């Protein structure tokens, strides 16, 4: 199997806050992993570390067999262009059309002029591709509508379509279902799992809803205060490990 992400003793601090402490993690190609933990446990930092957006203070990071620290700007761009990232706020531009938001996903492999052309007069090939993608996520009829006329769920689908248009090796999603009602959360996770299975994508999602994580992800990684507390298949997870994961430090089971 091919290793997509590999962390060894990775640490990262922001000022005095130690967000990650000596984290070891290996993710193989095609795996679907949920990072679970309370807020502030270091999930987002871990995602940004494996997404080559943030460098570790200490320890080693390897993304698709290469060390991002050793890459120049061009190499880094190329590496990032193969990692799709779904931020919590989706990162879409509200006053642009759906197609313009989706087409921007391929910036990493295009020149500046190519991007400008895509935004203003997208080519036939790109249009056909985007239409097909939007059909797959179920909002093809919105292709030429302004993003701010879409509902929250539809916007999430636009973000997913943008990630797929990027043709990535792996898809990283930061808390995609935290601000969403349960039905929509289930819907989105179903869509993500299905797409990743079809495309053979590696999927790493951070979340704090344990039930959903157990339902959709074969592998769970628990984080607490910047440390990995468990890492294994969903079936192996015991009740004790669970209560431990969400217990507040020093509070003795507050709340």
């Amino acid at each position: 199997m091919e290793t997509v992400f590999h962390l060894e003793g990775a640490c990262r601090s922001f000022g005095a806050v130690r967000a990650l402490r000596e984290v070891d993690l290996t993710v193989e190609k095609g795996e679907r992993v949920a990072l679970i933990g309370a807020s502030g446990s270091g999930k987002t930092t871990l995602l940004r570390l494996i997404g080559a957006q943030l460098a570790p203070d200490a320890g080693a990071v390897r993304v698709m067999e290469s060390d991002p620290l050793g890459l120049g700007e061009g190499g880094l761009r190329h590496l990032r262009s193969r990692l799709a990232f779904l931020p919590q706020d989706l990162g879409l531009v509200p006053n642009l059309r759906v197609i313009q938001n989706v087409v921007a996903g391929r910036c990493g492999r295009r020149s500046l002029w190519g991007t400008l052309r895509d935004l203003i007069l997208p080519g036939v090939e790109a249009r056909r591709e985007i239409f097909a993608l939007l059909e797959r996520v179920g909002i093809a009829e919105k292709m030429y509508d302004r993003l701010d006329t879409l509902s929250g769920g539809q916007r999430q689908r636009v973000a997913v379509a943008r990630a797929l248009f990027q043709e990535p090796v792996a898809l990283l999603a930061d808390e995609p279902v935290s601000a969403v009602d349960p039905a929509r959360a289930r819907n989105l996770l179903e869509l993500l799992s299905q797409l990743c299975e079809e495309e053979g994508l590696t999927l790493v999602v951070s979340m704090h809803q344990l039930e959903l994580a157990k339902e959709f992800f074969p592998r769970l990684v628990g984080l607490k205060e910047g440390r990995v507390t468990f890492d294994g298949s969903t079936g192996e997870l015991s009740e004790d490990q669970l209560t431990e994961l969400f217990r507040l430090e020093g509070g003795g089971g507050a709340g």
Partner: protein
Amino acid sequence: MNGLGTMWRGKRLVVLALLVIFAACAVRLGPKVVGLSEGADPFGAMGRFFGAAFAPSFADQNPSLPPDATPFLERMGSDLLRTFRYAFIAMSLAVPTALVLGFFSSSAWWPGAMTYGRPGGSRRLLRGVLRGLRWSCRLLITLCRSIHELVWAMFFLSAVGDAPGTACVALALPFAGTLGKVFSELIDEQRQGPRAALLATGASPMQAFAATLLPQALPDLLTYVLYRFECALRSSAVLGFIGVETIGLGIRRSFNNLYFGEVWTQLYVLMIVVIAVDVIGARLRDRLNRGVLRRRAVAATSGSPPATERALRRTAPRDWLVRGGVLVTLGLVLLSWNLGERLTTDLSARQRSDRMGRFLTKLTPEPARPADKLAATGERLAALREHRGEVATWAADLWKRNGARALLTTVAIATAAIILAGLGTALLLPLGSRALARGEPFGVLGTATGAVRLFWEGLGFLTRGIFVLARSVPEYIYAFLLVALLGPSAWPLVFALAIHNVGILGRLWGEVMENERPEPSQQWVRSGASRGQTYLGSLAPLSFNRFLLFFFYRWETCVREATILGMLAISSLGYYISISRNYFHYDQMLFYVLLGAAVIFAGDLLSDWLRRRLRGGVVMS
């Protein structure tokens, strides 16, 4: 209401300090408000002038014109067209320049976005170079802004000769500065999420700018450009007062001949034009923010076949009005460059360089002037270096003789004017507020009768109308009229600046109040407070910091304007600037201009700092 004390804590001190400062400025400017010569009758003149407001004239008031002279309306029409033309040309120069300057002084292209790990030596060097570029852009922006367009125009016209093109370039310079500054602020204050998302997928900072920040900022950029166009129209009109043939020249001529009816006709036309642009701007902002909706739904019913990409594209919602507007604007820009009188002078290259050389010689401080009027640059610089000490004494002498006094007066005029405007606006604001000036303030307690409702809504409309009218006429024209009516003292300038700024503050502060949360004020109304109490107890203190923000921003513009207005009355730097120009003492003129620029530069930094302290990242220029 015991809330009053706590709500105004600290703010009372600010108000008190402003009143004390106003008193100090008033003492500095002296008690003489009317400065006419013996025997003059200011009230009679004023009566005649304001009486003519109700009888604008549509034909020449001059009875002894030759029969083949161009009639008044036609003259006014072509003056107005020229005013538009120069504003268009200036804006078409200023906007592209400002885009470049604004982009490079924003943080959008900052390669820091791509940094990963610790920066190496070469990257640190690159960053140093880029930081230098960024700061030089900011410096350039501030320099362009610190010198008023009229001063640029006077320099250029003296250096190159009377040509409308030079006036346009002069107009474009400070506009490019202001636009550039606001562009960079607008770009920086957009939501950074979309940009970060693209950078995470390997986009370069430039690509991320093109695909996220630029489209995000575009509605604001366009409306701001339109607002500046409105300003350009006013400035273009004012250029008439130094001889460029725009509507300002017509106003001056008519006024000097005491044809007050003609003056008012031209003033009304200018107001209508400016207000029309204002209204178009408001509509545009609304439309861009809302977008247009899809007219026809494609495959809306579940039974019909799925829509094709082609059909979707064909029926995509497109705002033809905005697109058409952009095309028309481009067309008008092309027309303004190519139709009408020539923009350049008829001088030959040799004549032009002679003229430039003589100008440069006169611009050199007197002690360091080369004997040869057409000396080469090297000789000029050598002479300057040689007579360094004498130039310093010359400058110190000017500073002691007039400079210091004029500088102080300029600042005093601007400060007194903005405080006066602030007071006036604070008084008028509750009457013009959409929330207060209505039957039921803040929509609570629905007991108002029809008459009460009509009264308050009428009053609100009227007050907002006063704001609009007050800001539609440039300060310079107010000052020209007031100086003519009251005589040349500093106070007419203060009043002129104050009137214009009441209009501007009225709009800015009104918007601040409308954006304020209504709940606290509704609470006041519910507990029985009157409109005045609600305003003083809740609305005003809640919006106070943002009021101050705009207050300081306007103070800075007032200093810029006060420098210029002095040309009309015997005070402030403007007087010495125009006097030295009239005697061709360009060296002294340059000295006073630089003095003014230094004040504005300092004011710029000061108000920037104050604004950042009051609240980060609010844009309005």
